[in-house]
C-alpha cells in the first residue's frame, strides 16, 4: 500500500509537469525538458533488453552523456520508476568508452562536451543500450530521436539500429513514433 501511495504521489508529480507542458501551446524550454526527462524514464517498459543486459542485482541506469539539459527534473522523474523490476538510477558522464557505455541501459546523448556525438554513439554501438538524441536541439544519430511535432514533444525511432544492438521495441511505442526507420 505504501509503495502504491508513493508511486501515485510520484506519478502525480510527473504527470502534473507533463500536463503543464501539454497545456502550453509553445512549450517553454524548462517544460520541454521536463517532458523529455519524463519520456526518458518511460521508454523502459516498451523496450525488451536481451538477457543479461541488465545486471541481476543492480539498478537499471539512465546515463546522461555530455551536456545535461534536465538537471534535477530527471532525478525526480526516475524516482520510483523501474525496468523489468529493476529500480531506475540516473548517472551523468562527460564521455564514455565501450566499457562504461555497457553499464547503461538508456543513454541520452546531450550536446557534446568532452567527446563528440559520433564518438559517444560509436562507443555504444553494438551494445544493448537504447541511445536517445535530441534532433530538435541538433543532436542526431540515436535509436530514438526527440522531435517537436505540432508544438508537442514526439520522437522518431530507428528500428534497424535497435535491431543491430539487439533491442526489441514494442509495437505500441512504434505506433506512437512520428517516423520509424526500418
Amino acid at each position, binding site marked *: 500500500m505504501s509503495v502504491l501511495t508513493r508511486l501515485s504521489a510520484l506519478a*502525480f508529480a510527473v504527470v502534473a509537469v*507533463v500536463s503543464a507542458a501539454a497545456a502550453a501551446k509553445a512549450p517553454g524550454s524548462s517544460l520541454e525538458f521536463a517532458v523529455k526527462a519524463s519520456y526518458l524514464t518511460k521508454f523502459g*517498459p*516498451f523496450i525488451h533488453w536481451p538477457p543479461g543486459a541488465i545486471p541481476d542485482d543492480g539498478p537499471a541506469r539512465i546515463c546522461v552523456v555530455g551536456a545535461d539539459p534536465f538537471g534535477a527534473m530527471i532525478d525526480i522523474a526516475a524516482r520510483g520508476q523501474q525496468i523489468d523490476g529493476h529500480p531506475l538510477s540516473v548517472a551523468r558522464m562527460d564521455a564514455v568508452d565501450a566499457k562504461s557505455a555497457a553499464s547503461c541501459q538508456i543513454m541520452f546523448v546531450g550536446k557534446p562536451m568532452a567527446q563528440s556525438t559520433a564518438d559517444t554513439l560509436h562507443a555504444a554501438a553494438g551494445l544493448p543500450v537504447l541511445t536517445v538524441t535530441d534532433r530538435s536541439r541538433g543532436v542526431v544519430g540515436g535509436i530514438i530521436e526527440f522531435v517537436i511535432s505540432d508544438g508537442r514533444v514526439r520522437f522518431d525511432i530507428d528500428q534497424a539500429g535497435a535491431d543491430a544492438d539487439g533491442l526489441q521495441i*514494442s509495437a505500441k*511505442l512504434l*505506433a506512437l513514433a512520428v517516423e520509424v526507420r526500418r
Partner: protein
Amino acid sequence: MPLTRLSLARGIVARPGAAIVLALALLAASVVLAFHNEQVSRQEDVQQLIVQSRILGGSVAAALAFDDRATAQEYVDALRANPEIDAAGVYALDGHRFAGFSTADAPLPAINRITKPREDASEIEITAPVVQNGTVLGSVYLRAPIEPWTRRLSRYVGIGIIVVMAAMLIAGLGSSYAAASEANRRIKAEMEARQAAEDALRQSRKMEAMGQLTGGVAHDFNNLLMAASSGLELLDRTNDPKRRERLRQGIREALDRGAKLTQQLLTFARRSPVNPEAIYLGKRIATLRDLLDRSLREDITVAIDFPSDLWPVKVDVAQFEVAVLNIAVNARDAMPNGGIIAITARNVPASDGEPDRVELSVRDEGTGMPPELIEKVFEPFFTTKGVGHGTGLGLSQVYGFARGTGGTVRIDSIEGEGTVVSLLLPRSLEAPPRAAELSENPCIAEDRTCLVLLAEDDAQVADIVVQMLVELGYEVRHVDDAEAALELIDNGLPADVLLSDMVMPGEMGGLDLARAARRRRPELPVLLMTGYSATASAAAEEDIPLLTKPFGIEALGSELSRLIDMKE
C-alpha cells in the same frame, strides 16, 4: 429395467393429477433455468467487459505514457462501435481523465479509481489499471448498460409460451392416456370373459359329442343284445332245425356287429392291434361280397370289379374290411330308395412324389353332399344321421385306417348325383404268401392226435376255445395261468402247440409265458390271443403269431395248422 422405468412413467402419466403436477414441475424448472441463465449471462457480460478493459488498457499504454491524447482517443473511439458499451475512459496515473466518450446521458466520471466491478439494475462499471511490463501507467473505465428487465423478460416470452404449451400438452396427453388405458383394461377384461365363455361352450360341445357317441353306441349294442338274447330264447323254444338255423344266423350277425363296433371304437382310439399283411385285394372279393350282402339292404346291388393285375397292398385285413363296410354303409344310407354300389380298383403309378398306389373306389348313386360337408365327414363324432343311427365314427375309422397304412382317402361328391369315396393304399413290395389250404388239422392226416396246451383265465372264453379245438380234432389241456402252463411244460407235457391269452392274472403275462416256453422248448410253436392289449405290438416285434379276439374257428384252425406245418 428400462421396461420397469417405462411402465413407472406410464403409471405416472396415467393419472391426470400426476400429469398436471408434472406440467407444473416443468414450468417451475424452466423458470429456475431462465433465472440461472440470466445470472450466467450477467457474469459473462462482466467477464467480457473485463476483457475489453484489458484490451483497451494495453492499446492505450504507450499513448498514456507519452501523452498522446489523440492516439488514446482513437483507441477509445473504436469502442463506440460496440453497442454494449455506452461509456469508456482512459485516465492518467493521477486519476484524471485523459481520453474517453459517453453515449449515454450519464457523463464519464472526471476522476477514476480502481475498484471492483460494480453492478446495479441498469449498468455495469469496470475499472482496470493500465500496466506495461509491470509499470502502472494509468487506468481505464468502461460502463455497459444492462437491458431493462422488461426487455429481458420479453426475450423469454417465446420460450415461455412453448414451455406452457408443452406443459398443457403433457397434461392433455396424460389425461387421454389415462382414458385410453382404462378403455384398454376394460377390453382386456371383456376378452378374458369371452375366452372363458368360449372354453365353457367348447367343453359343453365335447360333452354333447360324448353323449351322442355313448348314446349311439349304447343304442347299437342294445339292438344287437336284443337280437342275440331274444334269438337265444327262441332257440330254446323251437326244435325246428330250419328255424333254429335261422335263429343261429341272426345271433351270429348280431355278435358280428358287436365285434365290429368295438373294433371301430378301438381303431378310433388308435389302440387296435394292427396286424398288417401283404394281400391281393382281388383275393378278398368273395369275403367282401359276403360281408356286404349281409350288412346292406336287399334293394342295394353291389357290383365289384377288380382287374386281375392289381398290385399287392399291405393292410390289416380286418380293418380293411371294416373300412370298406363303413364306406358301403354310408353309400347305402345315401340311397334310401335303393341303387347300385360300384366297388372298383385300379393301379395308380407313381407321380408327383407319390409312390405306386392302389386305388379302391366305392361309388353310389345317392344324394351326394355339399362341399362344406365333405370337409367335416372325417371328423370323429360327425354324423348327419340322427341319434341312434350313427356314431359318427365310420368315416373317421376309414380315415384312420388309410393314414395308418401310409395311404389317404378322397371324397368326390355331386349333390343329387352321388358320391365316390376312394382309398389310396401304397403298393406293397412284399409278395403276399400263397394261400394256405384251409384249416385241415395236419395231425389227422398223419393219423395221430396233437395236444394243445391252452392258458386262458377267462372261463367262458376258455370253454369256447376248448370246444373249437375239440371240433378241430385237437386234444386240449387247459390251465388258468402262465405259471401252471410253465409247470406242465417243465414236467414234460408233450404239447404240440402252446395257445395263450396275452393278459392273465399272476406275475406272468402271455408274452412272458411265450418267452419262457421258447427258452425251454425252442421248437414248441406258440400262438397268442388278445382282444385289446398294449403289448400286442410287442408280440409282433418278437415275431410271435397273434390271433385277434374275437376270432372264428376257421381262423384258429388255419393258424394252428400253419404253425404245426412249419414245425415239421
